[in-house]
């Protein structure tokens, strides 16, 4: 069989879909480091930077960004194909807040100067971003945040604390929501600020999560001086932008990625523990598989909207709820069929594909982060269904 040629990145979007799928497979075969397939937990930067840099070099880092900004400008269907093939191959998630959240935000709201300053550095892997929104007393009620930024001459001086900041130990930049007007209504005094993590006055303290992994952090700000040109959009208008960004986050979490991965592992496990042929199991599996297929279809609808340049409405919350709860039901099922193996700390038989308890635990926070599913349901009932309250 002829080897499949990998066309330059700007041509990927014009391939037919099946051909594109073959190209992605070949690309991963040639480029993805074998030892990083299906890692048991989220990788730190030092573990995955080789892969990140390779993606950057090849121009494959930002599939969803428009071509004029260095992205692949992929169609919705191709983005789904890409996701599917990454999952199939066991590609690890990289620190992707710059790619998924900050990049799209700067493209939409940033000045030309900010686009020039920040986008190329995401594309080159020079800037790794983390997201500094949540605070100890501002989780679901994000607008209650208190970390403040006071303008002094050409700088904002930042004081306060963020928490649950994923991979803050790995990032060199953080995007922050900060309070810039204490007098205004709580949503109206918030600004969006980009901060170099090497600035004096920043302390990062890792927190061990339920996976026993130091993935999220507390980040403390003590008189941190940030150049005022690092503010995105208008002062005190950060909330509206952050809300738009939450849309990107929801569609990202709503992508069928996690569920597709988990379902393929459920199947392997079912075969391994000998319940695959079982009729009752087949029915459960069929249900989960149909849920996944329909989730993919719904995801396609939202990706298509984005491609047409339409803003995502509050209804994108559906996608986040459906995906994360499917992910959880699949991993719940893994536990239920695994017998005593469900209680193992490490993958069953040393096989990374059978990381039963690990995957189950990883699925837990999906209904908490990115706006908890309770909050998503509040949004759906109020802002989509128009129910009073």
């Amino acid at each position, binding site marked *: 069989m002829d080897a499949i040629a990998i066309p330059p990145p700007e041509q990927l979007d014009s391939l037919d879909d099946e051909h594109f799928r073959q190209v992605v497979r070949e690309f991963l075969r040639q480029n993805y480091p074998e030892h990083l397939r299906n890692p048991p937990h989220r990788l730190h930067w030092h573990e995955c930077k080789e892969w990140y840099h390779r993606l950057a070099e090849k121009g494959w880092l930002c599939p969803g960004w428009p071509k004029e900004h260095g992205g692949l400008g992929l169609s919705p269907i191709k983005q789904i194909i890409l996701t599917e093939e990454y999952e199939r191959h066991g590609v690890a998630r990289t620190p992707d807040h710059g790619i998924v959240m900050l990049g799209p935000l700067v493209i939409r709201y940033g000045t030309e100067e900010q686009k020039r300053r920040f986008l190329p550095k995401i594309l080159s892997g020079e800037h790794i971003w983390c997201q500094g929104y949540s605070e100890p007393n501002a989780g679901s009620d994000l607008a209650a945040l208190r970390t403040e930024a006071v303008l002094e001459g050409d700088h904002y001086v930042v004081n306060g604390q963020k928490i649950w900041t994923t991979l803050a130990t790995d990032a060199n930049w953080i995007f922050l929501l900060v309070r810039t007007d204490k007098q205004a209504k709580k949503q109206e005094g918030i600004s969006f600020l980009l901060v170099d993590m090497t600035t004096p006055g920043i302390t990062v303290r890792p927190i061990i999560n339920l996976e026993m992994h130091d993935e999220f952090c507390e980040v403390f700000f003590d008189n941190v001086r940030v150049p005022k040109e690092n503010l995105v959009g208008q002062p005190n208008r950060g909330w509206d932008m952050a809300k738009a960004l939450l849309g990107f986050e929801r569609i990202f979490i709503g992508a069928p990625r996690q569920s597709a991965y988990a379902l393929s592992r459920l199947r392997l496990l079912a075969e391994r523990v000998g319940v695959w042929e079982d009729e009752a199991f087949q029915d459960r599996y069929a249900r989960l598989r149909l849920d996944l297929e329909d989730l993919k279809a719904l995801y396609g609808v939202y990706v298509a909207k984005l491609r047409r340049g339409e803003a995502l409405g509050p209804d994108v919350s559906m996608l986040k709820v459906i995906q994360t709860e499917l992910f959880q039901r699949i991993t719940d099922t893994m536990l*239920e069929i*695994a017998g005593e193996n469900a209680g193992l700390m490490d993958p069953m038989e040393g096989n990374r594909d059978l990381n039963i308890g690990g995957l189950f635990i990883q699925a837990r926070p999906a209904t908490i982060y990115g706006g908890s599913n309770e909050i998503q349901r509040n949004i759906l009932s109020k802002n989509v269904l128009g129910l009073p309250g």
Partner: protein
Amino acid sequence: MSAALDDGDRLESIRMIRDSAAAVVPPGGELRRVRELRWQEPGFDRGVLRQMGEMGWIGLRVPEAQGGAGLGLGELCALAEELGAGLVPEPLIPCALSAALLAAAGDAEHLPALLAGERVALTAWQERADTLEAPGAPDAPRRFLPMAAGAELFLLPVREGGRLALYAQPAAGADLATERTQDGGHYGTLRPDLGGASKLAEDVGAALEAALDEAALATAAYLLGGMERAFAMTLDYLKTRQQFGRIIGTFQALQHRAADLKMQIALTRASVEAAAAALDAGAAGDARRAAVSRAKARAAEAAMLVQRQCIQLHGGIGYTDQYDVGLYLRKAMVLANQYGSAALHRRRFMASAPEGEE
């Protein structure tokens, strides 16, 4: 035996057992000791196990004539529930199972040290995941031995003709491999060596079946204790955590969730207590199997639901290792399927409880 006690004495006996559990379960749900023992070998405290022996817990079900306390399942379940609330890591349930077998075998050599908590004897009956059957193949690896690194002795059921003989193999020099479990303990896999083992009894088949049922029921009770405790912590959190300028427990969605969890806990308690009462009243054979399976199926499923939701209702803090609620989830991940998963017990219930009979 318990059946000889009248109801009032019985309740008093159960209350005393609950109170005595405070000796190893610190009040207020303090879990420092539990955290310190995580992923250590043997993963429990031999001093605490001896204390359990002194209080008569290991031999709680063993007849008084053989050095036990001769108490009932009502007492055992009450005790297991208290231990579950404190996530006590000492392998009381597996030791009690071994004590039942040794007592049935009429053994006087190993039983006293086991009852005293001086020596740990574990029964290596299991050859695959999710089963209650002991095939007794002489050379099959014996799997999923809780806290096996702390054992002095392994009891090996071995099929001989139509009977299940019982052998004792010293742990010293045994071919044992361990794997860590989510709750901070470990499972052992033993490759039996009958050459170095001595025969204790010709047939313990029926005794093992009964002992496994009691272990399954006690495990259900342990899960119940964990649910109650994690749920209490969660209710406290719902009553104190504020967002949007309100206590989060005022949000109706969370109130209903909490009410749903409470109902599952109530069903679990009813099921466990009914099973304990049935067994104490002499239920045997299918009646025993049906009662135990009902309780374990309920407890396994309810525990997973409750523990998952307790994390969810805490938000980000629930996903940290330092916050205790996660320890209860990890314990449930290990115990939900021990001595049979919910699915296994549902199947067994259907096979042992014909419809339309009481």
